[in-house]
């Protein structure tokens, strides 16, 4: 207890369920948070505040203006900077008594095994299915407790995987959702929108589950899936059990390492008719009448693009109805270059003879560098 600041944690040490023993457990715990976004921010803040000894932060992204309404670790001066480093710096400043390790990288099968292996508990704050399945499989195979959380508009899901209950039974994400939905079937926050407080609540629930698992307080959501509705405050808890039809988990670590999670989630490798283009190429296309340029972001997303002529067809509308397109060459762009690829694949199914291009990195990376085209 010598190295614990008892004054700092006095209010939680005061809890008879926790005490100095519980605080010691927190101070020696190593928790990895994957994704430092809407869920990751409150998870990290509360775990740093609680005195978790070692926190790992995985994120490859940079802070964007549209993140700030829910990703409350970041400020205006962080825009454009890597989230992992910003989050680590802020948390370290907030609590110098803990160790925060930033991992500024895109999670892959290989680095997932190496990084997850260094921690006791993993928390999933990611925002896409390939990463969610990858984290789940790595944690199941490495036998690491995984605290799952995910959002859809006004609802959140929370569960604790890979921790045996009193009968020894344990489940993982694949026992609930054995197969991934097709790309674009389930909207994420960028497409469907979300109130900033929802990830705040769900992320805080995930942080609470971590503290409960580490200290033994209360009843964590082991083998239960909690669904919370922000608009009604309804909660619903489903009992989970191992998939009786057989687990779809990779058999072992070598099988895991050779998994292609994009393919598993239906995300196709670059198609012949769909090509990512650089800003340089994009700028040479601007003003060329043979090309139609389409913004597939939802209406009202910022920044508004005024530098060049284009039309707006949000991805959500493309999913409902494929529009008539006259040109044989179409350039698609979105915020970060993810949705434009999905839109390109959708359009290619209806127009297999046209050529589709998507702006790599989207407008966020390129917005200041468009060639200005004088048009109505």
């Amino acid at each position, binding site marked *: 207890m010598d190295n614990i600041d008892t004054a700092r944690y006095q209010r939680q040490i005061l809890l008879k369920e926790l005490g100095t023993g519980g605080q010691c457990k927190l101070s020696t715990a190593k928790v990895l948070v994957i*994704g430092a*976004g*809407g*869920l*990751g921010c409150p998870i990290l803040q509360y775990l740093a505040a609680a005195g978790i000894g070692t926190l790992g932060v995985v994120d490859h992204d940079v802070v964007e203006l549209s993140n700030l309404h829910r990703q409350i670790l970041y400020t205006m001066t962080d825009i454009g900077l890597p989230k992992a480093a910003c989050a680590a710096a802020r948390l370290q400043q907030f609590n110098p008594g803990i160790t925060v390790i930033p991992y500024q990288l895109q999670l892959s099968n290989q680095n997932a095994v190496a990084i997850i292996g260094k921690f006791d508990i993993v928390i*999933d*704050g*990611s*925002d*896409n*299915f390939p990463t*969610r399945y990858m984290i789940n499989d790595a944690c199941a195979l490495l036998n690491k407790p995984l605290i799952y*959380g*995910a*959002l*859809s*508009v006004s*609802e*959140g*899901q929370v569960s604790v995987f890979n921790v045996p209950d009193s009968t020894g039974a344990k489940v993982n994400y694949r*026992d*609930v*959702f054995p*197969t*991934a*939905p*097709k790309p674009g*079937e*389930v*909207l*994420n*926050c960028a497409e*469907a929108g*979300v109130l900033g407080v929802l*990830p705040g609540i769900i992320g805080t629930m995930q942080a609470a589950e971590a503290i409960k698992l580490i200290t033994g307080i209360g009843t964590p959501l082991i083998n239960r*899936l909690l*669904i919370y509705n922000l608009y*009604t405050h309804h909660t*619903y*808890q*489903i*009992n*989970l*059990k191992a*998939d*009786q*039809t057989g687990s779809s988990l990779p058999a072992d670590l070598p099988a895991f390492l050779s998994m292609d999670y994009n393919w598993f989630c239906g995300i196709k490798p670059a198609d012949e008719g769909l090509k990512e283009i650089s800003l340089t190429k994009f700028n040479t296309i601007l003003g060329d009448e043979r090309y139609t340029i389409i913004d597939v972001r939802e209406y009202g997303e910022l920044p508004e693009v005024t530098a060049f002529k284009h039309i707006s067809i949000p991805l959500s509308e493309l999913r409902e109805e494929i529009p008539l397109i006259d040109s044989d060459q179409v350039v698609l762009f979105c915020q970060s270059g993810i949705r434009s690829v999905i839109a390109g694949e959708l359009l290619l199914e209806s127009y297999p003879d046209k050529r589709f291009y998507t702006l790599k990195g989207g407008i966020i990376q390129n917005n200041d560098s468009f060639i200005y085209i004088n048009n109505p």
Partner: protein
Amino acid sequence: MKVQILLFGQLTELIGETHLDLYDVADTDAVFSYLLAKYPSLKHADYQVAVDLEIIQGNTHLTTGMTVALMPPFSGG
């Protein structure tokens, strides 16, 4: 014989309700054939099914007062 259907996530937008009451449905297959006929776009949706808070893996017999929850996966973070 009444069964309550609970809908979550995008299914609430797709069906336009958070819950439905169905009458005289003998099993979960009957629930799905009714829902798919009335809401064809449900065919493209992915979801897991729980009857009275327990995940089911195959067709399940229903009796009055039971609750069938349709839960899609969420991806947002």
